[in-house]
């Protein structure tokens, strides 16, 4: 019985005299090895040298603030429902009077977590976001020794108020996509 046509018939024929000598085969193999000395190397000396990363590369997420420094995210949950890997979880809270400078809308994400082990960096969260709050940046997510460290909370995701993350390239790309 044959289920697929991928099986190969193995032959067990006798080797010729030339093949039995082995030396020609060894010389042939060495020639291939030597030829690689003169080729362009396939590796680079990271971290001194770094490869080009496209400006629209989908890497680590950032939660944006508006011009006044208030967080854009309103914890609507559309990114989490759009996420095919179910990497995003959040808890919403109501903004109290006097917190207007911290949160743009009357509701905000008290907890916002992305599990970078689950995330597949597809960018559907930023497409779903109605508030232009979440964007993917060309920055890479490093590797850690502990699983807990891969769960990024607001401390790692929200952009620092004095060190804004430039996402103009990403926005341009998204605007084109949405049209």
């Amino acid at each position, binding site marked *: 019985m044959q*289920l697929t046509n991928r099986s190969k018939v193995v032959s067990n024929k006798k080797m010729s005299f030339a093949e039995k000598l082995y030396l020609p085969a060894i010389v042939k193999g060495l020639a291939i090895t030597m030829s690689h000395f003169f080729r362009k190397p396939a590796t680079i000396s990271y971290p001194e040298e770094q490869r080009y990363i496209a400006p629209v590369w989908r890497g680590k997420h950032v939660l944006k603030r508006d011009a006044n420094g208030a967080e854009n995210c*309103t914890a*609507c*949950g559309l990114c989490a*429902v759009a996420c095919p890997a179910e990497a995003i979880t959040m808890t919403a809270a*109501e903004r109290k009077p006097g917190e207007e400078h911290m949160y743009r*809308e009357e*509701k905000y994400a008290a907890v916002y977590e992305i599990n970078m082990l689950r995330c597949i960096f597809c960018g559907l969260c930023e497409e779903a976001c109605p508030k232009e709050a979440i964007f993917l940046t060309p920055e890479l997510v490093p590797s850690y020794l502990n699983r807990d460290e891969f769960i990024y909370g607001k401390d790692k995701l929200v952009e620092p108020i004095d060190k804004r993350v430039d996402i103009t390239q990403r926005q341009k790309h998204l605007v084109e996509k949405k049209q």
Partner: protein
Amino acid sequence: MLKVIIDDIEVEVAPGTTVLEAARQNADKLPGVPPAMCYYSKLEGSGGKCRVCLVKVGMPAVDMATKEPIIDPATGKQRINFMPKPQASCRTTVAPGMVIQGESSPEVLEARKGVVEFLLINHPLDCPICDQAGECKLQDLAYENGREATRYQEKRRTFEKIDIGDKIKLHMTRCILCYRCTYVADQLTDKRVHGIINRGDHAEISTYIQNAVENDFSGNMIDVCPVGALTDKTFRFKSRVWFLKPVDAHRTCNHQSKNEKIKCNGKATLWMFGGEVFRVTARKDKWAEVEEFICNECRYDHKNTADWTIEGPTAVSHQSVISANHYTLPFEMSKGMQNRLEQKTVKRSLIEKQLGE
């Protein structure tokens, strides 16, 4: 039984039914049922306020003197005399031989689009914040019939949020003045303490001097509100409806409303996340109307799984965002899906058979 023609399909309904009810009763035969924002079949006297259920209504033309049908020379069929303007289908009762055009008439669709635009004039477009998003009838309506962007540039009217009682939050900004909640108060509770004050553009739902609504059945106002104007304070911003799993459950409850019109029998929908009950609502039918009203005790005081007997998951239309990511089989399998499933089982049995050999 009367015979009426809705969207070129003849249906039979009992005399005295409204056009909207006639369409709902024959929903499987018709291309579509008029939407309704203010009409609520369980509330007496509701309807006629929002105008989204507009349809074209006409009668076959008959010669007054001879009672002979008038034939339209262009089509060779009997001429239909339509009313000059579309009518609200929730308030128009059927007549024998009536011809109704809803979904099939571009005029009606255009009128509906206009009504949606009017409803959205003062409604804030902040669905990401609103707790009703995902189960909001206005959101669905605007998605299906509205324009993509607003043309309104003037200032929208806004109100401060009011706590009416300790369990209900009123955000008048979102209200579309459907009057459903006032009918609930009138018909379910003994005394109505809220209503609509002022007129026209100034009309607003209010308890006047911030009177608390604390009747035993007042919580049903939250369920009948088609938008997010009346929301459950115990659930406010706790979660989004699409993260929760609705399950049907019941508990023993014989709560009677004070005017003895309505009785709670403890049948409700629990909105769960894992083993946690986030909120309790009444069960809703496919027209998003409450099947049986529940009392406030069931709604607010029993957010514990142990208090309920869980019957099973609530059937949610798989077009609804509420069914997103729940990985349950869509309530009704489509033809294509059935075929694929069948093919898969056939293939599997073939392979098993071959492996057996």
